[in-house]
C-alpha cells in the first residue's frame, strides 16, 4: 500500500470514521423520523448538551474517561491480533478492587491512597485477563469466547461479593461502603483528574507501540504470527503481555470510575463501559491516540442521551443503536472503497485455529 500511495497524504484513517459516523447518524435519523420525531431537533439536543457549554464538555470528558481506557484495552490487543471483548469484566473487576482498597485502608494520605487504589484496579483487571491470556497462549483457546465467558463470571462474582462479604453494613442495597475521602480523585481545572490520567496512558502506550521493542513485537505478532516467530519473537510471551496490558488498562478504567464518579462499587453502575470500548477502539482504528476523539464523541452521546429523552422523547437506547450502526459502517469496507481502491482487508483477528 505504501509504495502505491507515493507522497500523497492518506486521509482515509480520518475520513472513513467521520463518514461512517455521518452515515450512521442519517440512518438513525430515519429511525427517529419513523417514530414521528424530528431527527434534527433530537440531534441538536444530543450535541448541544454534550459539547455546547463548559459544564457540558466537563461532563462529556468525565464520561469519556473510562471509555478512552476501555478503548485502549481493546485497541492494544487488536494490535497484537487479539480481540479482547472482555474489557467489561476486567473493568468491573478493577472497579470492585479499587473500591475495596478505597474503603478498607484508613488513615493513608491521598498521595498514597489514590495510587494504591488505582494499582489494585489495574492488578485485578489484569488478573481477569490473565485467565484468557494463559488459555490463549498455552492451550490455543480463542480469546473471544473466554473473555465473554469471563465477563459473565466476573459480573456474577462481583454481585456475590457486594451482596455478601463486601456489602455495606446495615443497608438494604447491594453495594460496598463509600470509599475514604483520601481515595477520592480530585478535579483539576474543573475537569476530572482521571481524564488527564487517561490521556497520559494513551500517549505512553502510543509511544511504547512506536518506539520500543515491546511495541514492535506486539505489532509484528499482530500482522503475522509466523513472521514474528521466525524473527525470534516469543509469540506466547507477546500474547500474554498484550492481554495483561489490556486487562490492566481496563482495570484502571473501572478504578477511575469508582474513585472519581461513583465513590463506591454498585453492580449495575459500570454496565456497558467495557462494550463501548470495542466501538471506541474500532472507530479509533486501534490507534492509542485515535481512541481519544472516538471516546469523547461516544462519551458525549452517552452523557446527553437522557437529556434527549427528556426534551424530545427519544429513548436513550437510541445511542446504543447509533453506536451499533457506527461500528457497522466503520468496519464495513463499503465506505473505504469510496475513497481508494484498497483491496486488502487487513484481518485484525484470527480464526479458532491459531
Amino acid at each position, binding site marked *: 500500500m505504501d509504495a502505491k500511495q507515493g507522497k500523497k497524504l492518506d486521509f482515509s484513517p480520518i475520513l472513513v470514521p467521520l463518514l461512517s459516523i455521518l452515515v450512521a447518524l442519517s440512518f438513525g435519523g430515519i429511525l427517529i423520523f419513523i417514530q414521528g420525531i424530528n431527527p434534527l431537533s433530537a440531534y441538536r439536543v444530543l450535541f448541544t448538551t454534550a459539547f455546547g457549554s463548559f459544564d457540558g464538555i466537563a461532563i462529556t470528558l468525565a464520561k469519556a474517561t473510562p471509555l478512552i481506557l476501555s478503548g485502549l484495552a481493546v485497541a492494544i490487543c487488536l494490535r497484537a491480533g487479539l480481540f479482547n471483548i472482555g474489557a467489561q469484566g476486567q473493568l468491573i473487576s478493577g472497579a470492585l478492587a479499587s473500591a475495596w482498597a478505597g474503603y478498607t485502608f484508613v488513615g493513608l494520605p491521598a498521595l498514597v491512597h489514590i495510587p494504591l487504589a488505582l494499582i489494585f484496579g489495574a492488578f485485578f483487571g489484569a488478573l481477569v485477563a490473565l485467565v484468557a491470556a494463559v488459555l490463549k497462549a498455552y492451550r490455543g483457546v480463542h480469546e*473471544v469466547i473466554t473473555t465473554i465467558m469471563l465477563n459473565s463470571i466476573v459480573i456474577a462474582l462481583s454481585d456475590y461479593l457486594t451482596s455478601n462479604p463486601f456489602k455495606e453494613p446495615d443497608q438494604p442495597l447491594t453495594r460496598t461502603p463509600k470509599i475514604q475521602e483520601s481515595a477520592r480523585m480530585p478535579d483539576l481545572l474543573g475537569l476530572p483528574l482521571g481524564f488527564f490520567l487517561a490521556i497520559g496512558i494513551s500517549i505512553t502506550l502510543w509511544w511504547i507501540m512506536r518506539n520500543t521493542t515491546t511495541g514492535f513485537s506486539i505489532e509484528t505478532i499482530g500482522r503475522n504470527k509466523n513472521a514474528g516467530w521466525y524473527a525470534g519473537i516469543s509469540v506466547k510471551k507477546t500474547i500474554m503481555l498484550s492481554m495483561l496490558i489490556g486487562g490492566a488498562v481496563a482495570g484502571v478504567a473501572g478504578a477511575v470510575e469508582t474513585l472519581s464518579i461513583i465513590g463506591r462499587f454498585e453492580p449495575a453502575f459500570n454496565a456497558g463501559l467495557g462494550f463501548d470500548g470495542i466501538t471506541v477502539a474500532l472507530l479509533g482504528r486501534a490507534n492509542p491516540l485515535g481512541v481519544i476523539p472516538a471516546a469523547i464523541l461516544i462519551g458525549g452521546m452517552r452523557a446527553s442521551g437522557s437529556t434527549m429523552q427528556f426534551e424530545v422523547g427519544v429513548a436513550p437506547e437510541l445511542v446504543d443503536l447509533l453506536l451499533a450502526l457506527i461500528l457497522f459502517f466503520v468496519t464495513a469496507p463499503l465506505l473505504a472503497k469510496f475513497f481508494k481502491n484498497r483491496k486488502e482487508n487487513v484481518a485484525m483477528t484470527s*480464526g479458532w485455529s491459531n
Partner: protein
Amino acid sequence: MKLRTSHYLIISFLAAFTYFYSKDGLVATSVLYTAIQFALPLALAAMVGVMCERTGVVNIGIEGTMLISAFTAFFAGAILKNTVQGMLVGVFTGAMMGLLLALMAVNWKMDQIIAGVIINILAAGITSFYYRQNYSIPSTLDPIDLPVIGAWPILGPVLSFHGPITYFGIFFILGLWFALYKTSWGLRSRAVGEHPSSADTAGVSVSRLRYLNVTAAGAVGGLAGSYLALEAVGIFERGFTAGKGFTALAIMIFGRWNPLGALAAALFFGLTQAVTNQLMIDEVVEIPPQFINMLPYILTIVVLAISAGKVRPPAAEGIPYEKEKS
C-alpha cells in the same frame, strides 16, 4: 482413547440415574426432562456453528442472531396474536442475519470475528431500542403428548410432552448429520471448508455454497431464538439469550464439529444445569445463586481448555476465499 472416556461417562450417568430413580422416580425423570429443555437451544445454536464452520465461515454472531430472532418472534407473535406466525418471523429474521454475515464474510471479505461481533452489537442495539413492555403472546407453543413413547415407563415422561420446536430440532440435528456425511451437499460443504481451491477446481462454487449454508444456518439460529421466546419461557427481555450463543460455540468445538457430537455435548451441558438446579431446589447444598448462574460459563471455559489442541477445526475456517487469477 476418546471412546473409553465417553463409555465411562455413560456408565456413570446410568449408575447415578438408577440410584436417583430408586430414591425418587418423579424427580429423577423431571431432571432429565429439564435437561432436554436446557440442552435444545444450545444444540440448535451449535448447529448454526457447525453449518457455517464446515463451509469455512466462523460465526461468532450466533448470540446476536438468536437475540434478534427471539425479539422479532416474540413481538410478531404478540402483535399478530399468533405464536406460529411469530415463529416464522423469527426464523426469517435469523435467515436475514445469516445473509448479512454472508455478505460481510463472503462478499466484503471482512474479518469474520469482527463481522460476528457487529451482528451481536447490532442485535443488542436494535432489540434494546425497540423493546416495549406490556406485550404478551397468546400462549407458548403447545407441548405434544407423544402417542406410544409417552406411555413408556421412565423414558415416557422424559421424552414426551416437549414443544414442537424441540422435536423438530432433534430431527433436524439427525438430518443434518446425515446430510453432512452422506449427501453430495455435505461432501461439497466439507470440501469448501477444508480446501476451497480444490472444491473450486472440481466445479463447486465456493461463494454460492457459503452464502447458502450461512443463510440457512441463520434460519436455524432464528429457530433457536424462537424456541427461547415462544416455547421455553414465553417472554422477551433485553439481552435474554445470556451468552447461550457463545456456549453453543464451545459445544460445537467439544462435539468436534459433528452434529451428533454437538448434540451429546449439549445434553451434557443441559444435564449439568438441570442437576445443579435440582440440588438448589432441594437445598441439598447451600450454593449462592450467583454461583449457579456462573456454572455454564465456567463449564464452557473448562470444556474449551480441555478440548483445545485435541480437536481440529475445518482447515479453511475464517479465511475469505480468493479465486486465483490466471
